[in-house]
């Protein structure tokens, strides 16, 4: 019965400690998302610096014969020697230049090409969209690696070839993503307003639609860089690049070719692989940080789990009940 339970203001719950902790929660959350970005940025910065200053940092010429073959790490050669008697550390440092250069260049090219085709298809619609769409889907469906190999086999090995074949086999996925984003942005009111006020197509695309896609473009760019580094390493591993140049991928190629595995020479393939993994992981962290900032739902979910943990509430399906006197 409604009248029997009378709550006077003084009996209302006193200020609970949790209210003061809400500010703490916000700060903590901000820090965490920054932490990821920080980690990613620091690692990437380290690698970039190493690549830029490689000739200075490297302990000598990576292609020179400096010691006996397949020597394990020692004080003389920190990462040991390759199957050709070259210094592994020198190779890792100098090799970063090509690997990172190709990775970032191809990543950029893929993003740009994908943007060009995806936005055109998405904005123009109609026949142009239909045609571009089929074109994109065909490139999506035809398997990338076999196509890459086939193309690379016909062209002279080298950085230009690699950049070219990687770009034309990988633009389809970002194109698809950008197209669907453009499609949904095109329907928005502010675009309609620009169209009605007579703005040119190019202006609309660059000043209205593109800025609203920026976070997607940024994440896509980083994702493409990760893919490009991996694909380049893969191509080199298979022997389709100029195996006389030093890069992380060719290091792995030579390691496999010199049967490092059968000789137990793990130091010839672990360092380059680890480097690729670190760069990929750091970049992934960056993407996560960008995602979190732009996607509010992810933020709420993190908060929910951390708050539930703080109250020691195991997440069951039914609504949890806590009583004040028990807290």
């Amino acid at each position: 019965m409604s009248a029997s339970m009378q709550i006077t203001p003084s009996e209302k719950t006193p200020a609970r400690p949790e209210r003061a902790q809400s500010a703490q929660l916000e700060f903590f959350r901000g820090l965490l998302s920054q932490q990821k970005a920080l980690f990613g940025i620091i690692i990437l910065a380290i690698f970039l610096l190493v690549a830029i200053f490689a000739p200075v940092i490297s302990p000598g010429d990576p292609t020179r014969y400096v010691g006996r073959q397949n020597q394990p790490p020692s004080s003389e050669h920190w990462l040991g020697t390759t199957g050709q008697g070259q210094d592994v550390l020198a190779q890792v440092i100098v090799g970063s230049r090509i690997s990172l250069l190709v990775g970032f260049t191809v990543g950029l090219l893929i993003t740009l090409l994908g943007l060009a085709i995806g936005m055109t298809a998405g904005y123009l619609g109609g026949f142009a969209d239909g045609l571009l769409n089929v074109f994109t889907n065909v490139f999506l469906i035809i398997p990338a690696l076999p196509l890459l190999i086939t193309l690379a086999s016909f062209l002279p090995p080298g950085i230009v070839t690699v950049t070219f074949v990687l770009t034309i086999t990988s633009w389809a996925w970002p194109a698809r993503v950008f197209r669907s984003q453009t499609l949904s942005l095109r329907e928005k009111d502010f675009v309609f307003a620009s169209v009605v006020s007579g703005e040119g197509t190019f202006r609309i695309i660059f000043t209205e639609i593109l800025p609203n896609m920026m976070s997607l473009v940024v994440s896509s760019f980083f994702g493409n860089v990760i893919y490009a580094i991996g694909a380049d390493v893969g191509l080199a591993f298979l022997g389709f690049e100029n195996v006389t140049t030093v890069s992380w991928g060719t290091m792995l190629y030579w390691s496999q070719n010199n049967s490092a595995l059968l000789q137990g020479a793990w130091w010839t393939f672990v360092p380059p692989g680890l480097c690729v993994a670190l760069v990929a992981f750091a970049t992934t962290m960056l993407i996560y940080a960008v995602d979190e900032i732009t996607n509010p739902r992810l933020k709420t979910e993190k908060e929910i789990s951390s708050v539930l943990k703080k109250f020691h509430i195991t997440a069951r399906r039914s609504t949890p009940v806590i009583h004040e006197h028990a807290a």
Partner: protein
Amino acid sequence: MNTPPEPALLDVRDLRVEYLTARGPVGAVDGVSFTVNPGEVVGLAGESGSGKSTIAHAILRILRPPALITGGEVIFAGRDTLKMDEAELESFRWSNISIVFQSAMNALNPVLRVRDQLIDVMQHHGFPKDQANKRAKDLFDLIGIDPQRLDAYPHELSGGMRQRAVLAIALALNPDLLILDEPTTALDVVVQKDILYKIAKLREVLGLSILFITHDLSLLVEFSTRILIMYAGEIVENAPAHELFNQPLHPYTVGLMNSFPSISGEKRRLTGIPGSPPDMVAPPTGCRFHPRCPKAMPICSQTAPIMKAVSADHSAACHLY
């Protein structure tokens, strides 16, 4: 105050629900108490965000994180749902209390046929398959859909049919209490009337008690026995339906009634309620309605009013009384 001769079917006492947000805990329901007696239709009216749906979901403990029930009791037929564990809740739900959600469009599983969603709950409660199927047919007859539509998928039915299908599912286990959470808001006016009429007939036939939640006060007029008005997580008025309409006590209730046009009544000016709903993280001091109240007095911003019986069976939480 009248003491009902039989024990209340549903007795909600001092229910409190909070939502944990980044800005701090938000009190969505702050000490709500009311009863539903057997055979009654209790209407719960208020703006969106006043906490009415939260109460409905809290009764069945189906609120999602970050919701947290922080106090009170929900006594149904002698048992407190807030004290039940998962297993007890599983067997308690639907057979005693069932609920019809706001938009049936989203309440039905898109990949299951309607029949399967209707009989699965029956089978879980021990009905053998053929009996469940027979009952499904009977239920569809009862709510007025051709039983052939049982084998349809939800996307193949119209909005009104889906809402009726959800209603049929809600009646599957013959519950004592049916909660209707804005059952007609997502439908057009003609279909609205149709469904409400159906529900009224069903109530007679099946002897249901109903908790009817809505923001549309006008719907409650013909339909409810008793009406509760909610504002900012609290109940501010509680009266039998006709008495509320003839003599609204709380200024908020008065404001609500003045903001709805009446098709049949005389023409009058529509006035909204000035201001906007309060920020529930830091609600106004004293009476939560005082910043928007045309009858506010100095005491209103200092002390929160208590729910008081102004006449037999009619209570309000307002310093005017």
